[in-house]
């Protein structure tokens, strides 16, 4: 991804878009931040935010026509926020904290501003602060123009005068009682022509007087023609704004639609153009979203209660501090964060996709130094919930998955990140578990049952029963069996190489069986084949069971309702989700839907190998999910079931309800540990080989005959440290065979280490009656070299 693609991706995340009020405001007051400060009671900070956008805060807060209110999302939830009243409160209670106006050092070029109304004064204010020389002409004897025509009860004169005092601090020259008109002087035909000669740029803000400007081209409606983006007139270096643009030559025989805030906006935008014109840089570059526009920001208001303002206001209302703070607290503080609200992972890192995308990009681009986003990238469950709830379909899963593939290609993937899961996959695709057979007595298969490595690890007995069910349903078609891993862990880890190798092995066996229809019980396998093997016809075991299984499955009506947890890999598999619910209904189950289910379901933290890459975040994810209902959960993924059960959440696998022994409290069954998962897979293969095909397993390796005694607390610790029983056996077999071990003269323990793969395992043990009592086991990845 290059910078351009990054920006395109980033721009799809709308969190940083302005709230509706700010976008509707011609000068883009940061209303949200200002109101947040008021709600905190910090009126001075609020006023400084306001003044950033509005050079004359007293005047505008008294006469603003408030286009923000029409856009406010509170509009239909009690009424729009009283924004102008809050702005006045900023002045009433925060003026002492107003920061002084700063100006850059004086530059040589100078600008003439014609007309000292609010638009012209804005240009004078902005350009003087930039250091340009500014001379303001006005026909009257005072500055303020049309502002003086505003009724004093609406715009108190002290407020007006006070705001105009800002020019005492700025280097602006006023030439009053000077009429701009057709008379030029100094040898010029018009006054404007003379100013163009004497100044480097001119801003025309003459109020509603078009006919006095003979030098300028008019548009088809008889109005002064300006570039709508730059406010430059037909004459280079001459800009115009304010009421002069809002009337035609027919004025006063037409209505003047005056808006003070729009006049300020014109002035600000023209001042940007003039500044650029004087600097001789592009007038048009990067000028998106100036003036009022419609924001792309989405804010979900569904959970927000209607709440009217304490007092209704008009432009003369002044709040007390308390009422202002109460009104400010009504502000919704519009933002999107739809994805962050539903994802503990995205919330944990305290940002949002736009920010995260930049961090991922930087992480991939860095040449020297620490890659701070490695763990962020590896923590995503790749579950797709963010994209489902995102108004613009931003999918952090796709971004993180691509990043992982790139990290692997760059040889920068932390070796420990996914190692355990990849070795588990290697086990499942090795001789201990991998198996492909046509049904006994068949030379080819019409169907092949692919139960998946994790269901076989958690519930090998159910795999046998499910396979029997399929052979009973299709007695003449030939239902083969394939035991192995689908490759999902390699895919999640960004290991295309391992995935491709695994898939090649799968295809070899699959072709030999005659390209049967693949019956999948695990939804991760289902997604894996759906995505990477589109040429294969895949079927869900659950759909087949719904269709061909018993139509009456006992009566659980007297039981408490169950809450269905859809595995995240079924997000868009409504048919599988429906089949599961149908099966539950046939059992008489009363189903409770979780607040986030079906296409909005959450990951259990196994997805994307989150649980391995970041245990604290995975814990938050799983805890959130299990807290969503007090009912027993029913799911149809072995890992979801085990992950919930590990935290004490009563959870059933759907097969518990189908094949579980009556009377068993399967929901309370403990999860199956990592070592036992290997054991269960190997035993399943051995049992099926023996019972169905009268075959035996390959010979055992030497370490497998090492008998261990592992006390329960030690078992828990080594499970937590991701050390398998077979790793412990390998260490002891090596130590006892080679004699390379240490002996503790005080307690009689032996200590040995061995590195069967990328990890060095340590075991402290005592031989005991032909077996070995294990005291502790630990591991590291650093390699022990020779002594110095």
């Amino acid at each position: 991804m290059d910078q351009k693609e990054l920006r395109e991706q980033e721009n799809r995340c709308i969190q940083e878009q302005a709230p509706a009020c700010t976008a509707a405001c011609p000068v883009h007051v940061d209303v949200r931040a200002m109101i947040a400060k008021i709600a905190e009671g910090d009126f001075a900070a609020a006023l400084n935010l306001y003044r950033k956008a509005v050079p004359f805060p007293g005047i505008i807060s008294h006469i603003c026509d408030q286009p923000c209110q029409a856009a406010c999302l509170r509009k239909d939830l009690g009424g729009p926020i009283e924004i102008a009243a809050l702005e006045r409160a900023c002045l009433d209670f925060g003026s002492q904290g107003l920061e002084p106006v700063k100006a850059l050092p004086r530059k040589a070029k100078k600008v003439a501003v014609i007309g000292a109304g609010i638009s012209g004064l804005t240009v004078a204010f902005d350009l003087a602060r930039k250091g340009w020389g500014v001379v303001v002409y006005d026909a009257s004897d005072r500055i303020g123009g049309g502002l003086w025509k505003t009724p004093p009860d609406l715009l108190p004169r002290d407020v007006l005068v006070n705001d105009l005092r800002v020019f005492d601090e700025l280097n602006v020259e006023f030439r009053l009682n000077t009429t701009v008109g057709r008379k030029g002087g100094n040898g010029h035909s018009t006054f404007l022509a003379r100013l163009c000669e004497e100044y480097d740029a001119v801003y025309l803000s003459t109020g509603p007087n078009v006919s006095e400007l003979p030098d300028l081209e008019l548009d088809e409606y008889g109005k002064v023609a300006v570039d709508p983006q730059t406010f430059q007139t037909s004459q280079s270096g001459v800009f115009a704004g304010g009421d002069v643009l809002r009337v035609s030559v027919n004025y006063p025989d037409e209505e003047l639609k005056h808006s003070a805030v729009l006049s300020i906006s014109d002035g600000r935008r023209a001042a940007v153009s003039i500044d650029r014109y004087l600097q001789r840089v592009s007038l048009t570059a990067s000028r998106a979203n100036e003036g009022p526009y419609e924001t792309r920001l989405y804010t979900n208001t569904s959970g927000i209660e209607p709440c009217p303002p304490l007092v209704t206001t008009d432009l003369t209302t002044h709040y007390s501090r308390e009422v202002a703070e109460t009104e400010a607290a009504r502000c919704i503080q519009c933002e999107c964060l739809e994805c962050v609200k539903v994802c503990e992972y995205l919330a944990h890192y305290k940002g949002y996709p736009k920010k995260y995308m930049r961090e991922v990009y930087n992480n991939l681009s860095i040449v020297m130094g620490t890659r701070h986003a490695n763990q962020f990238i590896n923590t995503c469950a790749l579950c797709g919930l963010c994209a489902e709830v995102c108004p613009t379909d931003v999918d952090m899963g796709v971004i993180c998955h691509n990043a992982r593939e790139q990290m692997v290609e760059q040889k920068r993937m932390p070796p420990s990140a996914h190692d355990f899961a990849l070795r588990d996959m290697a086990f499942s695709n090795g001789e201990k578990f991998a198996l492909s057979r046509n049904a006994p007595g068949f030379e080819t298969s019409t169907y092949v049952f692919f139960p998946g490595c994790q269901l076989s690890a958690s519930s090998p007995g159910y795999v046998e029963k499910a396979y029997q069910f399929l052979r009973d349903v299709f007695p003449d078609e030939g239902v083969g069996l394939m035991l192995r891993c689908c490759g999902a862990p390699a895919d999640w880890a960004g290991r295309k190489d391992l995935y491709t190798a695994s898939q090649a092995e799968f295809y070899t066996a699959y072709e030999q069986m005659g390209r049967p229809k693949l019956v999948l019980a695990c939804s991760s396998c289902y997604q894996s084949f759906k995505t990477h093997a589109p040429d294969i016809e895949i079927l869900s075991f659950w759909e087949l069971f719904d269709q061909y299984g018993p139509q009456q499955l006992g009566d659980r009506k007297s039981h408490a309702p169950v809450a269905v947890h859809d595995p995240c890999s079924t997000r868009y598999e409504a048919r599988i989700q429906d089949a599961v619910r149908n099966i539950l209904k046939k059992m008489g189950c009363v189903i409770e839907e979780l607040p986030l289910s079906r296409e909005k379901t959450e990951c259990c933290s196994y997805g994307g190998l989150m649980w391995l890459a970041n245990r604290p975040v995975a814990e938050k994810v799983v805890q959130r999910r299990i807290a969503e209902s007090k009912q027993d959960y029913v799911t149809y993924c072995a890992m979801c079931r085990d992950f919930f059960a590990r935290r004490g959440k009563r959870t059933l696998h759907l097969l518990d309800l189908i094949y579980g022994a009556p009377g068993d409290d399967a929901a309370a069954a403990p999860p199956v540990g990592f070592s036992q998962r290997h054991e269960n897979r190997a035993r399943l293969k051995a049992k099926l080989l023996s019972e169905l095909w009268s075959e035996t397993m390959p010979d055992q390796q030497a370490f497998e005959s090492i008998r261990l005694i592992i006390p329960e607390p030690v078992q828990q610790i080594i499970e937590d440290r991701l050390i398998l029983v077979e790793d412990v056996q390998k260490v002891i077999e090596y130590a006892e065979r080679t004699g390379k071990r240490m002996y503790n003269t005080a307690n009689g323990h032996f200590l040995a280490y061995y590195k069967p793969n990328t990890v060095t395992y340590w075991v402290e043990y005592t031989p005991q009656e032909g077996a070995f009592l294990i005291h502790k086991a630990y591991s590291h990845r650093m390699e022990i070299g020779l002594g110095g």
Partner: protein
Amino acid sequence: MSQYVDLSAYENWTCANCGQPLQPGKVDISYMGNSFQVELLRCPNCGLVLIPEELALGKMAEVEKALEDK
């Protein structure tokens, strides 16, 4: 790295193969192309090294993580 572990707590360990008490000595440990010399207990005869549990799970794990993110 040896300052993160008190080697005196391991003085009862001997090399079972050579029958000799372990003695402090410099040992090279390396990861991802980075190498460090660490004072650890080792057999003066065959070079068998003792890496204590608290070192493996503490400072070593920390350094592994830091090197993986480099």
